[in-house]
């Protein structure tokens, strides 16, 4: 078993095939899209492959330590940041091929005109526990 992170980007991923921005869809198209995502997650729960899924607000703050006794420094958000994560789903699957298959299905979520978005999702393997037998 291996855990993978499916990352959805606001910005930074290559352009989707059906890239009409969400605010220009019809309300029904939005409803259908949200329904597809919810159904996808429940289906993965049913197959015993779902671990977690969360969405992130587009605007965040950078924070860093500023020395003993001083409050942390904050900065941003930076409008020019190229890579912006929109959310993630964590899956626990039997193989890399299965992870690719599921990411492909998630990328087929319907968008404008009810057609699949063909959005690029980033697939990242988790670092696992070390195996016991190594020699």
């Amino acid at each position: 078993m291996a855990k993978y992170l499916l990352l959805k980007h606001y910005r930074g991923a290559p352009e989707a095939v059906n890239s009409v921005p969400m605010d220009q869809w019809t309300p029904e198209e939005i409803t259908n899209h949200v329904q597809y995502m919810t159904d996808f997650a429940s289906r993965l729960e049913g197959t015993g492959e779902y671990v977690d899924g969360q969405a992130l607000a587009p605007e965040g703050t950078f924070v860093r330590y500023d020395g003993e006794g001083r409050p942390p420094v904050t900065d941003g958000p930076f409008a020019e940041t190229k890579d912006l994560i929109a959310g993630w789903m964590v899956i626990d699957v039997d193989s890399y091929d299965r992870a690719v298959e599921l990411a492909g299905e998630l990328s087929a979520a319907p968008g404008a005109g009810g057609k699949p978005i063909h959005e690029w999702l980033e697939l990242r393997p988790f670092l696992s526990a070390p195996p016991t037998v190594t020699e």
Partner: protein
Amino acid sequence: MDELLLRELTPAVIGILVRRGLDFATAEDAVQEALLQATLSWPDRSPADPKGWLVTVAWRKFLDARRAEVARRERELKAEIEPPPGPPASADDTLQVFFLCAHPSLTPASAVALTLRAVGGLTTRQIAQAYLVPEATMAQRISRAKRTVSGVRFESPGDLATVLRVLYLVFNEGYSGDVDLAAEAIRLARQVVSITDDEETAGLLALMLLHHARRRARIRPDGSLVPLAEQNRSLWDTHMIAEGVDLLQRVLQRDRLGEYQAQAAIAALHADAPRVEETDWVQIVGWYDELLRITDSPVVALNRAVAVGEADGAPAGLAALAEVDPKLPRHTAASAYLHEKAGDLERAARLYADAAQAAPNLAERDHLTRQAARLNQRLR
């Protein structure tokens, strides 16, 4: 209350209920309920006949569940409280439960989960925690697995090799949480050894014991890994090693070699060296040759190349490594090690850094990064 005894009895009790006419999934649910009941009702001491107690309680749980079902349909069910007499439990039934849980129609992850629950007697929550997934996900994985094997006849002949693969996975690939998966795999392997007469099963148990014996030396308190060559060998569990070596020697005499026996033989040769310098690398290479012949696995060829490097020197090891697919995980790490051994520190440092980037887990990545850092310090 002896939790281990309870869990030990799990597959036998499932076997008895199946013999009495329940389907596997229903029997498994009922036994899991009975296990929970036992943890509540046996606070100080176990009943005189724990197995009989579990059978009776599991049967009642089954009747309760069925009654609740029937009540919903507003019908009455007349059923005996005591289970009908059935054939006595036998070792064969326990083995059948092992076979069913490792059935080839299951994915490895499902087989692991079902085995830990139906023969390991662990709760869904414990299994979920051990594999870092939500309990709901693990519950679904287990119930799907039970559905998948629902059509398999309980008496169908099973394949011991599938059971061993599942136990090997439990032993080798798990997180170190509250449930000690390695210890659990050893316990289950012991159980299979006690009801079968099979060389590879004994070989697998020996392999597990020989690796488990090194655990205290292998992992520092902070979780970081200590490579075999640097381990404090006085921390090795000599009783466990003796047991593993004994077991292995007995089955090797039967001359029916398999991959687990060969792997155990390699582990035994490491265990046999009081100091790393005294390791019998020539014999180890010989066992890798056997293992390669049996498995034809590229991973074995990779490990063999490292052993060749120890037995015949780094150039021979690098030559053996050149025959192995460079895309294989840990190829770069092996190459780094052999290049350092050959004295090419700059190249080794670069390779260690590359290997760290590709490491499949955090402990290995940290270890490889430290190796690169160590060489880079020396090169300054």
